[in-house]
């Protein structure tokens, strides 16, 4: 007798995936089309169609609004301009659209999850471990089933990105909500707030810095997925990197990699900036 009891998950899993593909594949492909036509393509068309200087202007204004400092806003704009100089403007816009849509979907799904986790200990005990698994599972493991179910291209890439990048948002939303000063919540409660009034008027605004930190991390993780996403045919900067590596064109790969870094820095500074503009909770408020 072997010490290890033979256990084979491969066949059942393969069969499950196959039957999912046969039974729901067409419907999921329709969902794919919906996300594409309803969300990604319009955004991508707008970004790719707009004159680059308009986009650069928007970047500059956003960066300025977020940081209130031209010393930050200007270099960020120049960084984006530089990506254009590399001849990667179009790829940049595709990647940007991908990351933005992934982030929006992650927020739409992650914020409620975080709220649920913050309000119910039992649900938190379910949600957080599941997220841990999603974050640690090697991405390629669910990339390929995603291709089977949703087809090749940007949508499965976005969905895989959401799966991977949603984690910090849920965590930081949960944390931020649970760290809201109980004294303040009690006071609001004493005035007869409903759950919604409490959530929208007190808890979410006070957890805002934490939530934005989560959004920031989610965007960063989405960006880090760009290259992996290109392995299932998502075009953009990631494809450049992948092609560069696979054709031994180190220069091409590095240049596109640098573009991703520049984009990451720009998005990071801007989202962080917005996190800071909001009024922080001062500690004197809670001395006791």
């Amino acid at each position, binding site marked *: 007798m072997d010490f290890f009891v033979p256990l084979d998950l491969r066949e059942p899993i393969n069969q499950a995936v196959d039957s999912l593909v046969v039974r729901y594949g067409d419907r999921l492909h329709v969902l794919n089309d919906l996300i594409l036509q309803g969300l990604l393509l319009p955004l991508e068309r707008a970004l790719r169609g707009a004159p680059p200087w308009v986009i650069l202007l928007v970047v500059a204004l956003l960066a300025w609004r977020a940081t209130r400092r031209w010393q930050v806003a200007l270099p960020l704009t120049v960084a984006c301009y530089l990506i254009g100089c590399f001849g990667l403007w179009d790829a940049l816009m595709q990647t940007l659209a991908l990351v933005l849509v992934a982030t929006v979907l992650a927020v739409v799904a992650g914020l409620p999850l975080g709220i649920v986790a913050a309000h119910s200990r039992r649900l938190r005990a379910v949600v957080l471990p599941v997220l841990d698994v999603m974050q640690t599972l090697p991405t390629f493991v669910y990339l390929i089933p995603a291709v089977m179910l949703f087809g090749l291209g940007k949508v499965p890439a976005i969905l895989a990105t959401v799966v991977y990048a949603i984690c910090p948002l849920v965590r930081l939303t949960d944390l931020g909500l649970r760290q809201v000063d109980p004294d*303040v919540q*009690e006071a*609001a409660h*004493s005035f007869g707030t409903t759950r919604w009034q409490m959530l929208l008027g007190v808890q979410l605004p006070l957890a805002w810095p934490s939530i934005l930190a989560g959004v920031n991390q989610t965007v960063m993780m989405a960006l880090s997925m760009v290259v992996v996403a290109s392995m299932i045919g998502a075009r953009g900067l990631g494809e450049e990197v992948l092609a560069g590596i696979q054709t031994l064109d180190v220069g091409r790969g590095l240049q596109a990699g640098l573009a991703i870094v520049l984009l990451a820095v720009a998005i990071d500074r801007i989202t962080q900036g917005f996190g800071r503009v909001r009024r922080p909770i001062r500690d004197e408020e809670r001395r006791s």
Partner: protein
Amino acid sequence: MSARIELRHVSKVYGDDPHRALTLLAQGADKHQVLADTGSHVGLYDVSLSIPAGGIYAIMGLSGSGKSTLVRHINRLIDPSAGQVLVDGEDVLGFSAARLRDLRRRRISMVFQHFGLLPHRTVLENVAFGRRVRGESRRNAQAAAQGWLARVGLSGHERDYPDHLSGGMRQRVGLARALASDTDILLMDEPFSALDPLLRDDLQSQLLTLQAELGKTIVFITHDVEEAFRLGQRIALLRDGRLVQEGEPAAVRAAPVDDYVARFVARVSGADVPRSTGSAPG
């Protein structure tokens, strides 16, 4: 004077198994024994009180004696483990969620030791909060808030954020916020404890004036015996979650029921603080 608020045999045990703790207490165990035996904290045990309408009712006791626990039963921020809580003759424990919200929105408001102001809203928005919560338009709520801010002497600070204010100013915001709800009952949990003595004196006077003018029923929590005697038309003393003595200040001073009360009272009897620093209640 009819009883506006009544507590009947209210007990509160913090812990998993309040019934066991209550049984022990009924057998004569004290708070510390219960904690040792069950790991549960006793907040209150078998407290019965009747708070008359109009006037300031002061509740005092040492730290941990259950004052905050008691006052939070009145608007049900805390549910009792046993007993009844009546407001205007109605048992609030039987209230639906909607009625309870209504109670908090229109009949009882509260001031907190640590202010509990919303740090992300301006002073004006904070004061208007209670009215906004109950659905009034922003314009109406803020107009009313403006009036109350003026009443507590904070005109001109409408657009400030709470953490730009001094402690005394913040508590005035807290007071204005509670007053802006136009409730008949005002709960105040050590509202002035975090303030320095001069400010406290000032605010006490202001409170007496306000009470005289508005005739509200105020439940005032304090661990400061001088404050209790100065403000309270009646006084209740808590110790380890039990009500020790209750009555008019003069009566309590004249006949303390035990050493604990006597030691408290001794601190004021010499100074004989006049109750009429502000305008006397009418």
